[in-house]
């Protein structure tokens, strides 16, 4: 830990983004708002003209939108799940990481959950998936995995927002006591009258631990249920028992990658070098390496089983992906998810901040390709040969994809502007813990010498 830091420095540094606004912020926000408005206009065009403006067809009725939806739900595992696991394991290095990770979860879920609405075409009918009887008095069919998805995502989003908010209350109180005017009123409202008494701290830590325990199975259930949307059908190469674990592993994999990318950018832009140190990236890099190997093992197991089974309808799908028109996407996925990140992350020399960043960007691209291969690749080769078809995205889908990325970044940038992206109290807690450990080690070292 950096011994040059002190209480006042930490508070000042971590609150700086809230009180100082540079020109870069306005330029970034303007650019992002422009892209989001463009995407909104394109969505309006699709609503007006109908889903025909997208490249969706028979048999590929799910394309870019559902691919991107699954991708975002995957990266949403960055925060709440990783943060909860690190908290419960008392991982000392987690303190500067958790808040930025939890924010990724909330915004990825918000942006991801929009995609099924876009894919619906008639988005105003979205409430039909909610547990709500329609005009004929019929309740929705709980046997549909789409409804399970709705419930799982709603639960996870609610839990993630609260899991982000509850640990933020003490920091909101710090901001409340340091600002004036409308900001004081806003943060005062959000801080819920936090005083920082030992009783409140005790309850808060208890509540955070409880939330962490509750949220881990919810997070696992979310991506398992997302995988059920595919696995519960009898579509070749979807109807697989490994889909649940594969999706969860893939989600954590892409989630860690998203977190590393966000941390590298935050470190650079907000000058958080003393707080986000190389060891944080190295530890996350090791986690990413582990997930990369796990992902490869699961994917290999899935494809090996299909190949060994040699069922004709599955083999058509299998060869379509491995050496057919989908081969560039399939092998691109393997290269991006394994061939590039594993050597970069396996060696200490290359597991630097830059190395982790390159590996993470590669994984994010690779995991989007994985979703694309699963969704579009499998749909293109259904059971009966006469129904085979191809899919190519249109400018509408590409625009909305770019718009969704811009929207996600915009939400993150605005969040960073309004709230401390590194938890002040958690960082100080970790920092003091490290100091105490160092003090305890001094006599031992002296004795050894």
């Amino acid at each position, binding site marked *: 830990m950096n011994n040059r830091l002190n209480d006042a420095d930490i508070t000042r540094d971590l609150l700086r983004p809230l009180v100082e606004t540079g020109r870069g912020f306005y330029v970034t926000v303007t650019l992002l708002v422009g892209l989001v408005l463009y995407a909104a206009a394109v969505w309006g065009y699709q609503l007006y003209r109908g889903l025909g403006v997208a490249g969706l067809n028979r048999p590929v009725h799910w394309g870019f939108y559902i691919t991107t939806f699954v991708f975002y739900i995957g990266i949403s595992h960055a925060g709440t799940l990783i943060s909860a696991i690190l908290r419960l394991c008392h991982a000392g290095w987690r303190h500067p990481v958790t808040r930025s990770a939890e924010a990724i979860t909330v915004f990825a879920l918000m942006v991801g959950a929009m995609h099924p609405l876009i894919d619906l075409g008639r988005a105003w009918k979205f409430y039909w998936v909610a547990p709500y009887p329609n005009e004929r008095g019929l309740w929705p*069919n709980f046997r549909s995995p789409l409804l399970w998805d709705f419930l799982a995502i709603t639960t996870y989003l609610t839990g993630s927002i609260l899991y982000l908010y509850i640990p933020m209350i003490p920091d909101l109180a710090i901001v409340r006591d340091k600002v004036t005017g409308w900001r004081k009123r806003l943060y005062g409202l959000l801080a819920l009258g936090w005083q920082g008494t030992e009783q409140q701290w005790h309850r808060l830590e208890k509540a955070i631990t409880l939330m962490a325990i509750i949220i881990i199975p919810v997070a696992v259930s979310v991506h398992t249920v997302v995988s059920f949307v595919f696995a519960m059908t009898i579509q070749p190469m979807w109807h697989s028992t490994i889909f649940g674990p594969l999706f969860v592993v893939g989600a954590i994999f892409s989630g860690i990658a998203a977190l590393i990318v966000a941390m590298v950018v935050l470190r650079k832009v907000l000058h958080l070098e003393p707080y986000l140190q190389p060891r944080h990236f190295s530890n996350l890099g090791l986690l990413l390496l582990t997930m990369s190997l796990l992902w490869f093992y699961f994917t290999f197991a899935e494809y090996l089983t299909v190949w060994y089974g040699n069922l004709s309808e599955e083999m058509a799908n299998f060869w379509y992906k491995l050496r057919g028109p989908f081969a560039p996407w399939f092998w691109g996925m393997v290269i991006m998810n394994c061939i590039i990140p594993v050597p970069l992350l396996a060696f200490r020399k290359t597991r630097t901040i830059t190395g982790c960043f390159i590996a993470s960007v590669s994984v994010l691209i690779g995991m989007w390709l994985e979703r694309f291969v699963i969704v579009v690749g499998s749909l293109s080769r259904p059971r009966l040969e006469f129904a085979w078809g191809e899919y190519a995205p249109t400018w509408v889908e590409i625009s909305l994809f770019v718009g969704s990325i811009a929207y996600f970044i915009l939400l993150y940038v605005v969040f960073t502007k309004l709230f401390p992206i590194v938890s002040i109290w958690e960082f100080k*807690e970790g920092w003091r813990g490290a100091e105490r450990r160092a003090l305890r080690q001094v006599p031992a070292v002296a004795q050894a010498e």
Partner: protein
Amino acid sequence: MADTIYALFHDPSSAERAVSRLLAAGVDSDSIAVRSSEPFLAWRLPAGGEKQKTRLPLYAVAGGVVGGLVGFSLAAFTFRTMNLTTGDMPLIAPGPTGIVTFELTALGAIFATLLSLIAEAGLGRRERVSDSDQIALAQAVAEGALLVCARCPDEITARATAQALEDAGATMVTIKGGSPQRLSHS
């Protein structure tokens, strides 16, 4: 008339020493409160046995049970309302019912945790602080200081307690009661 003493400390060990002295001097632990911008639970500030007691886990479990019952009822009611002919299959399908029940159990536990945190930690109360001393103390806590508050039954005890706090290393001690008085500010 009861007075309250506010003492600011800039390092946790001084605050810990001060609280130990107060307890040794016979001040009731319920009359002592420590405010800080970070948790010092690991430093064993004497929060007192009663203050440590919480029913948060119990409420979370209760919330989970209520959520689970709601989820099961919702799914079961839906299946029964549909008048499906299922042959020999169960009318209330265990898989979907299980998923709906699981998700709503988690949702119930999450909301129960939040609500019980608000209730037990005394959050959500609107307190308008206009006293400039109180604002200054709050700002000092936001900067990283620890505020030790002690309630004393009379002014004589308050003065003795304030002296003890100063000796323990308080950088600022204030007595608030009938007439607020700033003792020192270093």
